[in-house]
């Protein structure tokens, strides 16, 4: 187990390295000078030049790159040009909303998808099954930013049930916190629910035809037990993979939904960073997102072993 963990973490290093290198050079290609953006159009040439020197933007690209890389290895991701705080502080302060949103969206996705997928599999070919599949197609086809707008139209503009946008931290109370997150979480969760429901259905269909299910039924095991204890447990591996992937999407792909609902999360941090040419922030946040990706993937693989003990992580892959 330990060697497996070690190997996986080792394999993450080149991915982290490549992503940060790609992003560094894309940002360097970006027209627009952060110094000029900070000082505004009225600044004199000398002032801009001074600031460029201060921010070390006047050094050659490769020098800037190696500087950033060595500092990053020491755990220092630099300072934001605009926010008067270090990149690590900025990421930490934006992490909470993204995690809350991601978890809520995932809860919505799973509570919708698992029962629907199981129901569709049990009644294969029926109207119920077809409705679930149609819902799943619709859910996968509506882009999340569109669904956000539709939800705002219905629940905020027409019915005035929930706020249009904004965010309240958990310290303001649970309901206050969740109130702002319901619509964005639904907007994000629906597409994932659609995918998980599809996967649940097909995984359950495969398992439900297996001989041990027939045996269990023949022995007179209650249907509920057959479904939840015998079938679902064995069908759970592919479902878990999809859930893991969807959670990954949530940790990084929430940028546009966070922007629409004005939630100060990581996605919004990156979008603003790109727009304002805040290189250090984008670099750091990208590194975080990639790290989260690798970490969640690893966590999902570890869970395989717990859900299904037949999976041995140490054995040769």
């Amino acid at each position: 187990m330990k060697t497996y963990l070690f190997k996986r973490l080792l394999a993450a290093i080149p991915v982290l390295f490549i992503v940060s290198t790609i992003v560094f050079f894309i940002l360097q290609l970006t027209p627009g000078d952060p110094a000029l953006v900070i000082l505004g159009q009225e600044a004199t040439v000398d002032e801009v030049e001074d600031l460029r020197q201060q921010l070390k933007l006047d050094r050659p690209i490769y020098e800037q790159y190696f500087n950033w890389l060595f500092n990053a290895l020491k755990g220092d991701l630099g300072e934001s040009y605009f926010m008067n705080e270090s990149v690590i502080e900025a990421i930490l302060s934006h992490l909470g909303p993204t995690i809350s949103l991601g978890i809520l969206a995932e809860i919505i996705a799973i509570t919708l998808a698992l029962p629907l997928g199981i129901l569709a599999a049990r009644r294969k070919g029926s109207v119920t099954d077809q409705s679930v599949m149609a819902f799943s197609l619709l859910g996968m086809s509506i882009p999340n930013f569109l669904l956000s707008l539709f939800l705002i139209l219905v629940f905020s503009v027409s019915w005035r049930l929930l706020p249009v946008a904004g965010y309240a931290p958990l310290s303001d109370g649970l309901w206050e916190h969740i109130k702002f997150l319901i619509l964005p979480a639904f907007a994000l969760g629906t597409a994932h629910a659609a995918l998980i429901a599809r996967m649940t259905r097909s995984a359950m269909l495969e398992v439900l035809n297996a001989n041990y299910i027939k045996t269990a039924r023949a022995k007179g095991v209650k249907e509920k037990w057959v479904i939840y204890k015998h079938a679902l447990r064995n069908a759970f591996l592919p479902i878990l993979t999809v859930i893991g992937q969807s959670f990954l999407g949530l940790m990084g792909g929430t940028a546009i939904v966070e922007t629409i609902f004005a939630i100060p999360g990581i996605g919004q941090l990156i979008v603003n960073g790109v727009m304002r040419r805040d290189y250090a922030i984008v670099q750091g946040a990208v590194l975080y997102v990639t790290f989260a990706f690798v970490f969640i993937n690893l966590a999902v693989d570890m869970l395989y072993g717990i859900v299904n003990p037949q999976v041995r992580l140490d054995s040769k892959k």
Partner: protein
Amino acid sequence: MTISSENIDLHAVKSALKKEQNKILFRQIMTNGSLVVGFVIIAFLMLVALFGPLLIAHDPNTMDVLNRFAAPSADHWFGTDNLGRDVLVRVIYGARISMGIGVAVAIIASMAGLIVGIYSSYYKWLDHLLMRISDGIMAFPGLLLALALMAALGGRASNVVIAVSIVATPYIARVVRSEALALKEQTFVEATRALGASDTRIIWRHIAPNTLSSLIVQATFIFAEAIIVEAALSFLGAGIPPPAPSWGNILSDGKTYIYKAWWMTFFPGMTITLAIIGLNLFGDGLRDLLDPHSSKATK
């Protein structure tokens, strides 16, 4: 005499067989609900994109200040926007931009993905390099990468195509690579190699054509993804610069006035959703037709 009559028979048998095969294929296509419905939706939107603008007399940017925020009516089916521009006209012109970008990305990403995928399946040293790079690109949310690329390239339709193609290429390359890896070990490839065929010939004459069916299926999904990413980029203000009526731009205007004019959001939004549903159905149907193994589990 006997030989020629046998020849004639053979021809007749061959053409009868061909006819029978075509009939079966036709039946397979017609009984494939997703394929037919998806095709009809996409064909309709393509026709709108190609010929719609020719049939409409007025320009999508014509303003009619007296008629701002007019609700949907017989004159303006989709209503008018904050500058009095007809939303339906803008959505029709937008089909040209958004569908055009989708087609362009699907073609470019398919070609790039085919080259990357096939060469990395064939040369091991190249495989390590290219697959690590595509791991890197895929480890990062596509929209954010496209956003960063757009910031670097500048907001123009051609740059949207480049940015989204870069994001999409690894997904095609993955599919082609896994297909080509299996093909490489097949007897017919070995036989061709034993006959002395060059690597280039084996790759392009024998392996590449056999990866096409999976590639085409994947390309329809990339088409859909490209429409979504274009809309998202323009929505964030990093895509095609306004006032060009791309679907994303129309939505972005709609968001500003969501309290005042629901139709500015609803109709372009439904059009995008229709396009994505059409492409997803078409892709699913195509997969059932061309690549029955992969969809067996979900049937």
